């Protein structure tokens, strides 16, 4: 086995690292680790997507056809967990790994070895999660929010899920401490906080949110574990506990979590819109303040997920007002992006298309968010397809579209090759069409009274469910096109110049060749 000294620099700065599989197992390089994060999350996206296809296939027609109700519940539960913890979050960490050091002029992440460890925990956790389908009793079936007492009833699958969440949480905490330390300590001389690229800012704030809430999640799953196996009664009324306590603790984690998945997306879009408008970001400092206010507000709105659980009138009103307030900084962001585009000199390459698609659909998700914040309306739409539509608008056309935008934007820097613009545009327009076909109609299903998490439904819901399922199959297939496009880019893409985007101003475009060298910025650049 090759001696591994890839992380020991000092005498030479060439691409001196072990090859083959050990390169990836032992790597401490932020670019390698970023790549692994991205491929891992794409693999998980495929697994979670497969589960989504199963759900939509069952819901294609009324009646039970493919998945028996118990298995259907396992599919919905694991779809949610895998997409949130396996696909979206690691993908953003992958972006942070690749981009944060390059954008702040640092040679690597602050804790390079811990970086390796935080990645390699993920496959372990994913194996437990996906493997739980094959244990007696099957996977967890209590929804991705695993509310007790239902989750206390499940079998070994629930325990595997709990351990998996523990491991994923540990990975996230390490990853975010690493990101915070890197951003605070390793910026190039001259790069003050208020000169950092927006992507770096949003990740800094996100990382703080992660450090704040992941321990809460770890705590609540541990309480669930001891309720299940060690006779405690945190959530068991018969023993003096309270099932609603679980919901409060879970959503204290869960609401900041949704912003953990969207703030870095805001960051990516805030890089792309100015680049392709050839004009600086409008209202940079108000963007920073808006991001920070969203993060702070996100910690005091958790009970809006629980309006039907029952709480005092004052409680409902407080959480309604606080939730509605989030619309203000979010609105500021949308206005800033619009003002950035205004009187720019725009071109519409794939990253820009996805960024505009993001704004367009995220705003629809934002509107349904305001509607869901209104308590009387929320009480009607809570736990219906309306809510499903709402959060898929912010998570799929929000977080996921921003991730696609980011991949198209930075893939020339990562691989040194251009992607196929034609295929990229196809990917965008097909995703856009099928996404809306899948989820727009779900608003109507929810309003008309179709609850979520049911494997079968009344005939009045049949037509829109069929449209939604067809859209979902189309959306799923479209993502295979994306896979092909990325592989094609790596293998056959034409050589990318240092900066293929003439409006790009961040350090990775102005200072580094494409592809970025294995070790970059060993001498920090000076930022004026």
């Amino acid at each position, binding site marked *: 086995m090759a001696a591994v000294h890839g992380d020991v620099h000092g005498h030479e700065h060439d691409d001196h690292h072990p090859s083959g599989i050990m390169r990836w197992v032992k790597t401490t390089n932020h670019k390698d680790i970023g790549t692994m994060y991205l491929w891992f999350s794409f693999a998980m996206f495929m697994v979670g997507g497969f589960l989504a296809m199963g759900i939509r296939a069952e819901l294609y027609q009324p009646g*039970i056809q493919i998945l028996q109700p118990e298995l259907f519940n396992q599919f919905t539960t694991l779809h949610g967990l895998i997409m949130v913890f396996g696909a979206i979050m690691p993908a953003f960490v992958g972006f942070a790994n690749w981009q944060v050091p390059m954008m702040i002029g640092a040679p690597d992440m602050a804790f390079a070895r811990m970086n390796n460890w935080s990645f390699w925990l993920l496959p372990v956790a994913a194996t437990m999660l996906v493997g739980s389908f094959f244990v007696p009793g099957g996977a967890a079936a209590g929804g991705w929010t695993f509310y007790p*007492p239902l989750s206390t009833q499940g079998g070994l699958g629930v325990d595997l899920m709990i351990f998996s969440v523990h491991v994923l949480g540990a990975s996230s905490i390490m990853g975010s401490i690493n990101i915070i330390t890197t951003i605070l300590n390793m910026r190039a001389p001259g790069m003050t906080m208020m000169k950092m690229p927006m992507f770096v800012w949003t990740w800094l704030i996100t990382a703080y949110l992660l450090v704040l809430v992941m321990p809460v999640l770890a705590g609540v799953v541990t309480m669930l574990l001891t309720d299940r196996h060690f006779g405690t009664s945190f959530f068991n009324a018969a023993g003096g506990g309270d099932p609603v306590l679980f919901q409060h603790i879970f959503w204290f984690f869960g609401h900041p979590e949704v912003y953990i998945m969207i703030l870095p997306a805001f960051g990516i879009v805030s890089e792309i819109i100015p680049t392709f408008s*050839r004009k600086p970001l409008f*209202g940079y400092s108000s963007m920073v303040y808006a991001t920070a206010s969203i993060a702070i507000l996100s910690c005091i709105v958790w009970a809006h997920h629980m309006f039907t659980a029952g709480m005092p009138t004052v409680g409902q009103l407080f959480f309604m007002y606080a939730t*509605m307030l989030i*619309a203000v900084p979010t609105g500021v962001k949308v206005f800033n992006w*619009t003002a950035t585009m205004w009187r720019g000199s725009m071109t519409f390459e794939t990253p820009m298309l996805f960024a*505009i698609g993001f704004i367009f659909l995220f705003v629809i998700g934002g509107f349904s968010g305001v509607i869901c914040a209104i308590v009387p309306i929320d009480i009607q739409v809570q736990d219906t397809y309306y809510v499903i539509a709402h959060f898929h608008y912010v998570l799929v056309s929000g977080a996921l579209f921003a991730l696609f935008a980011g991949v198209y934007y930075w893939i020339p820097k990562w691989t040194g090759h251009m992607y196929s613009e034609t295929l990229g545009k196809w990917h965008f327009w097909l995703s856009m069409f099928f996404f809306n076909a899948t989820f727009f109609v779900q608003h109507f299903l929810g309003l008309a009274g179709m609850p979520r998490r049911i494997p079968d439904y009344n*005939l009045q819901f049949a037509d829109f469910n069929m449209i939604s399922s067809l859209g979902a199959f189309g959306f799923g297939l479209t993502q295979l096109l994306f896979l092909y496009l990325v592989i094609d880019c790596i293998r056959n893409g034409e050589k990318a110049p240092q900066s293929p985007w003439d409006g790009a101003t961040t350090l990775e475009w102005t200072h580094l060749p494409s592809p970025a060298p294995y070790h970059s910025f060993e001498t920090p650049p000076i930022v004026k």
Partner: protein
Amino acid sequence: MRSKLVATLAGVSTLALYSSMAVGSKYNFPEPQSIIARETYDMHIWIMWICLAIFIGVFGVMFYSILKHRKSVGYKAANFHHSTTVEIIWTVIPCIILVVMALPATKTVISMKDTSSPDMTIKATGYQWMWGYDYLQGEGEGISFYSKLSTPRAQYENKEPKGENYLLEVDNRVVVPVGKKVRVIITANDVLHAWWVPALGVKQDAIPGFIRDSWFTADAPGIYRGQCAELCGKDHGFMPIVVEVMNADDYSKWVAAQLSASAVKTSMHIENK
């Protein structure tokens, strides 16, 4: 210029047609049958219009920019990057809009929460997978029964054609009189459930070991259907709620029939001993 005007008009009218279709069809909230449901329905429509206005405003500007300020038509980029005045304006205006939205909502929340002085009280208990009802107070006090899905298994296994109320029909309906304030006390026996009747504007989680309450006053006689709205395991999708609202006379007859039936049951029970 003229063709552009025509295009704009066509676009706007399509949008209006589309939204009115959405508002008027069965894909909106069901026809409200109680004051709370009515207020919720109206609030939703009203907020939808506000959202639509904002949507047209924001994306009107954005798409104008996308059409006009593009490199391919030779537009040169300006270089402005902030304006404190504009930023303050577009922070303050959303705040005002939110206050306008919050006022009626607050009023409805307060009246939703007011379960005091009901004409009658019914306890609903969620079980895996059915509902139990106990009439605790008011006319019908003492009535008690379970309510289970009555759709035959063969229908959801696709062996028989599905009926109109597929999955939304039960063996014993909850019967209540029209125009009376009904307080529903909601709890569960095993896991979380939620008692939900959309047309009456009631949804409340049923929590084992705890009691929550809600209320409704039905405006008109009829049969209103809902479903369990909190994941409760395998047959979560198969425990509907059906409320039948009767006028006062019919309700009294129903109560009398129920009470005599249960008296027969009780006396048989005693004789058997």
